């Protein structure tokens, strides 16, 4: 490049691109962690948002979190097995993401509303909802069919990112209802949590949700489980900066938490939700985690990632570290661990039995619930359908 040739320098820079992208590179000072992979407790830590995070759990609360983690993993394994045996059409496993889901799920207060993707079985469990509830969708006998308002847990959303706008609108409604910021009592205000993945952050809907919630100062927490992949595409295909830093550009705080650390995830989510309910607007949480299994049961991850990467994450397992901590601190003994495993197995067996017993819907029900006020057209099509079905009766068809 000739000296003083500014154009050439500019061109060089362009081809070189910005500094090496390290969006997946985790562990700097900006990762909130309260329990190391070895099970060491970190008393308190200051997040990238300047907030000091800590938790103050009783022994039985610690044991409760461990129980959640184990049961949630066991139910997930059972669902994967049910799919393999042809009892579910597909399953989206949460394996590896238990802490992100249990930590955030337990941080919700009863009055809070959750908007899940299709993977939040652990959050659902922590809301006290029967884990059978989403299995109709995966078995193909319904498309959700639960009451989101009753459960404070919206139906699963498969279209990537769409639910973040629904969550934002719901949060705007909370504000309009005057249910925000009235007192410091956490039982008072309501807040919303929107779940989504790293891939989802590229969708227009998600970026619009950020803008809306920021402009309307909505009581919402954007909880991104960065599990490093959107099916086969690594996080580098979605971003060149750590995702949590995007929040700043939209005008609200972002924080990155060790998503395999249930304590840190709880602390960060609790804080963000309470901020929201007290009128301090949205927060984005990036839970740094890893999808240990396939994207869904139809996926083959060996096509796009190596075993060494998976093994490296295996060493950061969300459950092993809690177990190590409980044992080291003598918060739990061998009898407790056995009892939890037994409970997990019992819940899994109950789930299995009830999945097997799920009846197929009557075909004619496919005409039901298209509208509140059913149209003559649907009624006519249903009637013709019934007539047509009846024409096969007795024909051995």
């Amino acid at each position, binding site marked *: 490049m000739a000296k003083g040739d500014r154009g050439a320098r500019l061109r060089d820079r362009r081809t070189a691109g910005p500094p090496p992208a390290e969006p997946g590179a985790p562990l700097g000072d900006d990762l909130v962690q309260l329990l190391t992979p070895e099970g060491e407790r970190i008393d308190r830590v200051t997040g990238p948002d300047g907030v000091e995070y800590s938790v103050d759990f009783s022994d039985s609360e610690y044991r409760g979190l461990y129980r959640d983690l184990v049961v949630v993993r066991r139910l997930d394994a059972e669902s994967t097995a049910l799919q393999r045996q042809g009892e579910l*059409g*597909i399953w989206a496993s949460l394996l590896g993401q238990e802490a992100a889901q249990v930590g955030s799920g337990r941080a919700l207060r009863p009055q809070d509303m959750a908007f899940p993707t299709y993977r939040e079985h652990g959050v659902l469990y922590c809301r006290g909802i029967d884990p059978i509830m989403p299995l109709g*969708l*995966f*078995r*193909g*006998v*319904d*498309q959700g069919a639960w009451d989101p308002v009753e459960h404070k847990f919206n139906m699963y959303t*498969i*279209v*990537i990112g769409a639910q973040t706008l629904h969550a934002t609108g719901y949060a705007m409604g909370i504000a309009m209802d005057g249910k925000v910021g009235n007192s410091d009592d956490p039982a008072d205000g309501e807040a919303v949590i929107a779940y989504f993945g790293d*891939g*989802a952050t*590229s*969708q*227009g*809907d998600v970026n619009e949700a950020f803008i809306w919630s920021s402009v309307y100062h909505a009581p919402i927490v954007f909880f991104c489980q960065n599990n490093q992949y*959107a*099916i*086969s*595409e690594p996080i580098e*295909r*979605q971003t060149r900066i750590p995702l949590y830093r995007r929040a700043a550009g939209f005008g609200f705080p972002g924080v990155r938490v060790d998503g395999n650390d249930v304590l840190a995830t709880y602390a960060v989510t609790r804080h963000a939700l309470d901020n929201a309910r007290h009128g301090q607007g949205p927060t984005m949480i990036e839970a740094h985690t890893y999808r240990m299994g396939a994207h869904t049961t*139809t*996926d083959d991850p060996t*096509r*796009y990632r190596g075993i060494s990467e998976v093994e490296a994450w295996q060493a950061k397992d969300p459950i092993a570290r809690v177990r190590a901590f409980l044992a080291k601190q003598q918060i739990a003994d061998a009898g407790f661990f056995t009892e939890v495993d037994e409970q997990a197995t019992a819940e899994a067996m109950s789930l299995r039995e009830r999945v097997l017993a799920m009846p*197929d*819907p009557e*075909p004619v*029900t*496919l*005409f039901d619930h*298209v509208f509140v006020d059913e149209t003559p*057209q*649907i009624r006519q*099509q249903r009637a013709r*359908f019934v007539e*047509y*079905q009846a024409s*096969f009766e007795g024909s051995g*068809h």
Partner: protein
Amino acid sequence: MAAKTMTMVKALNAGLRRALEADAKVVIMGEDVGKLGGVFRVTDGLQKDFGENRVLDTPLAESGIVGTAIGLAIRGYRPVCEIQFDGFVYPAYDQIVSQVAKMHYRSQGKLRLPIVIRIPFGGGIGAVEHHSESPEAYFAHTAGLKVVACADPAEAYVMVQQAIACDDPVIFFEPKRRYQEKGEVDLDASLDGARPLFASRVLRQGTDATVLAYGPMVRTALEAAAAAAEDGRSLEIIDLRTLSPLDLGPAYESVKRTGRCVVVHEAPGTIGLGAELAARITEECFYSLEAPVLRVTGYDTPYPTARVEEEFLPDLDRVLDGVDRTFGW
């Protein structure tokens, strides 16, 4: 002639490969199309062989995929976008309908957008919601878009290349439930000698009634014809192939002979493609018709859950029932 037996997935892959070889401006873009080779493996191995500048794993945003394809086309490229499943095309709907469809018109012909948008469509694979839809009417209703649907491996191989060579934007529907069905494909087939992209074809000749189908329903219609033949009824089967523009010359000719016509598609009937077909055939063949043109389609409900989808989808029996009804008129 290098005729080989292969699946539609493999045939599409071979067609895309040939297009990438033939024209350095062809680029493939979509979610998971690179390393994974697409969730259906239609683009398997293409990134490895042609590089990351020709086969792009894009960020997860359909509006982004189609919107940037427009920019690439303005810049002289021929983008081939993959939408992962039918139900995920809607985030790109604005870019397709308001931008892709209109730029040639607005620029008074100065700007060409030779973009192909591939969409696996239709049901019958036992999938969860948004993975089994038939959105073709939305696009066929939009002026400025050409819309085609392939039905078997040999057709898929040729048609995808023709779509890429086409200077107008083409929405290319692939019947995903037929992806793994095999057929003979002539890999050396020259595009010059091939049936034009925007032409229908008579697949089976018959004398008693005409059945019009496209995409996944072509095979269903052929099976219905075989069953009808056993009952002594002769059905003529026409594969429409092109949904916009329509090529109905062969259909008119056929219906004028048979006097009866049944249109089959998976998409809901109301304001669907079948309505347009029935109207046109009625206009052209009015004095030859022995019965109204009947439609055998999905119902006017959202696509139902997997365990009842077989009841929603037209099958052999429903096609035959439709034919029977034209005889009972």
